[in-house]
């Protein structure tokens, strides 16, 4: 029996573990190692250079720009997205008109939840392409909409360094709000109705109900949503929108105004043939990601409420 168990465990773990190690773990370890070399990626030869890549990075203006942009995205996008999502979810679940002591959502909340979720099932590439057209300065849907209501104000959304990053961030918000509305709705529907009814009897308004009951009880979900969103805004999602929507050599917008860390890694490794330096920036991105997760995890850690 015991012998059979170990053979079974080994047999079942072998394939997934081998694949995972070879394709995920090993490249990660290699990446960290390469950041101490001068490897170009084009030839197999390389030499150890110690911390030279890191020194170079600290003096690299474009690195600091992309670092700053990633930081803006990771602070701003989750904040806006989660606030909007919390507001909508609260309206959909608790915000309905109060008849007696019944706590309900507004009318048609099922419909809203279905519609809000649409962007979540679409590929980020499709969304980015659509918005690239909508943002186009002369014939784009947004500017011609502005013209139609009589506004002379016609920003070159993606071409103007002052606007480009915000335009890209707006797309990230657009894509993700619906997901969190649905996620928070699920969380809110598991909060017992008695809590709301008790608050209602005590004469609490909507805002009080939200800040005193809903938000504290939902905090765990909000926090994990925050981390999830932050990882998106630092990683693949941000890469995709910037890579697709903004111009410039390899994306990144005019004067690197939208370059973010993952895009800079990509450009250095696969455009400039500086693989070692790219992994150095990647390590910086890893540090930022882990630091972000650690900060959010510490934020407002509190006793779990059982209900």
């Amino acid at each position, binding site marked *: 029996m015991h012998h059979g168990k170990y053979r079974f465990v080994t047999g*079942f773990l072998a394939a997934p573990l081998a694949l*995972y190690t070879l394709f995920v773990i090993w490249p990660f370890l290699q990446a960290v190692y390469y950041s101490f070399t001068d490897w170009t990626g084009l030839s197999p030869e390389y030499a150890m250079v110690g911390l030279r890549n890191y020194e170079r990075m600290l003096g690299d203006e474009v690195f600091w720009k992309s670092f700053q942009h990633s930081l803006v995205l990771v602070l701003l996008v989750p904040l806006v997205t989660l606030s909007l999502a919390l507001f909508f979810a609260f309206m959909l679940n608790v915000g309905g008109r109060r008849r007696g002591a019944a706590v309900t959502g507004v009318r048609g909340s099922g419909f809203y939840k279905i519609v809000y979720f649409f962007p979540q099932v679409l590929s980020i590439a499709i969304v980015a392409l659509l918005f690239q057209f909508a943002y186009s300065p002369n014939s784009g849907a947004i500017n011609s909409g502005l013209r139609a209501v009589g506004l002379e104000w016609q920003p070159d959304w993606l071409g103007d360094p002052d606007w480009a990053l915000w335009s890209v961030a707006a797309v990230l918000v657009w894509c993700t709000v619906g997901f969190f509305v649905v996620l928070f709705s699920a969380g809110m529907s598991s909060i017992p109705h008695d809590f709301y009814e008790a608050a209602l009897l005590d004469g609490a308004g909507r805002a009080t109900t939200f800040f005193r009951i809903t938000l504290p009880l939902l905090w765990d979900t909000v926090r994990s949503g925050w981390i999830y969103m932050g990882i998106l805004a630092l990683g693949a999602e941000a890469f995709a929108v910037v890579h697709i929507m903004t111009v410039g050599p390899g994306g990144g917008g005019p004067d690197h105004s939208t370059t973010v860390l993952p895009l800079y890694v990509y450009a250095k490794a696969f455009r400039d043939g500086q693989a070692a330096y790219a992994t150095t920036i990647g390590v910086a991105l890893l540090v930022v990601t882990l630091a972000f997760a650690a900060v959010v995890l510490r934020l407002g850690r509190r006793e779990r409420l059982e209900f």
Partner: protein
Amino acid sequence: MGTTDIPRASGAAPSAGPRPHERAGGAAKESPGGAAPGGGPPRRARGGKGRTLNVFSHGMLVLWAFMVVLPLLWAVMTSFKTDREIFTAPWSPPAVPQFDNWARAWTQANMSDYFLNTLLVVGGSLTGTMLLGSMAAYVLARFDFPGNRFLYFLFIGGMSFPVILALVPLFYVLSNLALLNTLHGLILTYIAYSLPFTVFFLTAFFRTLPTSVAEAALLDGASHTRTFFQVMLPMARPGLISVGIFNFLGQWNQYLLPTVLNTDPERKVLSQGLVQLAVSQGYKGDWSGLFAGLVMAMLPVLAAYIVFQRQVVAGLTAGALK
């Protein structure tokens, strides 16, 4: 963290499923009745402040619904316009619907190839992810052996690492294995990068299943392997469906991995193919064809979502309640 939250999380997620339907049904029933005794705001005179707040917040809900739907409807409409119409009047409907745009996108702009490649890749990778993921998760959830915890954290650690960092060396790993720019190389990569979440989710799920059935099967002389495939997997079906939908959407919509690892124009998948199309149609000036391609890629997923709405929502939200 994590482990203690999981049972509640996976329990909360399915409850998200029936909710919208319940609500939608409720709203439908309510509106005819509600309209009769004056469906408008003054049902209960509750003071002006509450009313203004109501109008404002309901207005926000409607506004956001518009902001979500409008770009999508606009894309569908644009896909039937001529190139001239697209540029001169972005908001007007087409004078004559140009069905030809769609035909051109499907045949000349390689949309059919992109679809086929995506189907092949996702078909292979989804099967592989579910099989390997559930095998690893089952063993990690149900068997005690030295190193179990270590392997578990090794797997789930992959969720928080920036993928782009690993892609630089992975590019050369694949190149050495002659897997670069091949569909099977892409399949293996998708599987590997889907494993962390799949293992994380299914380990939690297998732990919630009762042990008695599997024990009975073992006592009856079934092997561990047979118990897994014939007893445990069928029992784990709800979890498998959730994580399967999650992986399907993630892999179908994947952009980063194919952009880096699969640059052969012949083998492009849908998302990168469309971006490629945007570049090449830009030179040709065939914007209407590009819009047709975009809508073509968008509609099947949206249609599938509307049909399987409950399962999709449950699957995706279960994912983030970690």
